[in-house]
């Protein structure tokens, strides 16, 4: 392994770290990487190419996220250019959200994700008596539900 390869790897890691440091504008404390929005990060000839996946195509936060990613990447001074693309495929699904951040979304935001069998568990009291109440929540990526046990409204990332 020559020194050039090592430098390339260090640059890539710096860029990857910068991308992962960007938080979702609607979930302060949650990295876009943990939400599964980052598909690929490449560096070639000091130019970063970053492919992102939107939760929903019409999400109004896409421009802000792209700008935050660009600012974070350029601030590393590891690359001279940064190209960001929002991919149309693959499509984002809740499976892309990592385990730790699921728990954080539940405890901090009362936002939960459907289990693989389609069921819901209340993020407040752990009860299984959560019923869907509205297909549209405050944002494209969330629907509304309600726990009959602890009587809290719950939002579901979908």
């Amino acid at each position: 392994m020559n020194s050039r390869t090592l430098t390339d790897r260090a640059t890539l890691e710096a860029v990857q770290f910068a991308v992962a440091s960007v938080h979702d504008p609607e979930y302060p404390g949650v990295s876009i990487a943990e939400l599964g929005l980052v598909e690929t990060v490449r560096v070639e000839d000091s130019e970063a190419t970053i492919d992102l996946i939107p939760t929903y195509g019409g999400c109004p936060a896409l421009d802000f996220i792209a700008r935050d990613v660009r600012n974070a990447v350029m601030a590393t001074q590891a690359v001279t250019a940064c190209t960001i693309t929002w991919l149309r495929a693959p499509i984002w699904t809740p499976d892309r959200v990592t385990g730790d951040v699921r728990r954080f979304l539940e405890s901090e935001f009362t936002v939960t994700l459907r289990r693989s069998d389609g069921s819901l568990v209340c993020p407040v009291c752990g009860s299984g008596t959560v019923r869907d109440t509205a297909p549209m929540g405050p944002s494209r990526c969330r629907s509304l539900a309600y726990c009959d046990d602890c009587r809290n409204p719950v939002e579901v990332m979908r």
Partner: protein
Amino acid sequence: MTRSWTDLDDFQNFIDGGGIVEAVDDMPDDYRAEVFRFIEFHANSELMGGLTERDWIPRAPGVRLKQIFLAKTQDEIGHAHLLYQVAADMGFKDRTQMLEELFDGRSRFHNVFHYQAVTWADQIAIAYLVDAAAFASQRAVFAECTYGPYKRVLKRIISEEGFHMRHGEEMLLRLTEGTETQREMFQAALDRWWWPAVHLFGPDSDPNDPLLRWKIKSQPNEQLRHAYIQKYVPLLQSYGFRIPDDNLHYDDTFDGGKGAWLTSDIDWEPLKATMRQGGPDSRRRISNAAANYADTAWVREALQRTGAAA
């Protein structure tokens, strides 16, 4: 597990010790009534605010701004939905009753939704000034908020409102870098919206306000209003705009030499008028909201018939 308290003193000790009340608890009747009124007012305000944003979707200049206004509308209506659910759960009125009273003009909502937005610059003044005032007051409620279900909803609301404020700043910056006509448009909008934004915090709190005692509100109205004025006067002036208040001045001696921006004595009559549905645009706003509710009856009916959650 349902908790109960022997008397109001016992309940106050629980609150003062950092306790959070849950929907299933046997809370004191007065607490339940006060918190319900507060949440119903908030829910009404989110709904009326969302309908206002909606009116501007077709008029927003450009696809990107239309997309942002669509999303903000969905945000506000979604917040209203969550808040009506928390309010209805408290057992006084169901959602339909709250909505019907609102559209009948028998219910209160934030003063700022009783005024007309005349130009696109008004929409920017609202996003920049009014949303910031609402955000500051919601954050102050979230800071303590002893009613658990409301606190959880507020957490998400304030995260989203923080995002709206970025849009407001972005839109304002674009206009300030524009032509002289654009700057004049914003100045005219600021002249219309400055006082309503200041009024949003309400008159000085009664020191015996039960909402303060029970830690729904964490700070009296006058403190929040003062902090808001300290932040926004210099910001707006730095962009070269004039605050519509001839007596506005900086007092170096305020608070033992800390200094502060001080306004004219505030005339609260316009605020009181909005609380009686007597604001400049109250009638039109309420009748538009009522017409919208009637127009969308078929959606609610269709959702019910198909068995989908409504």
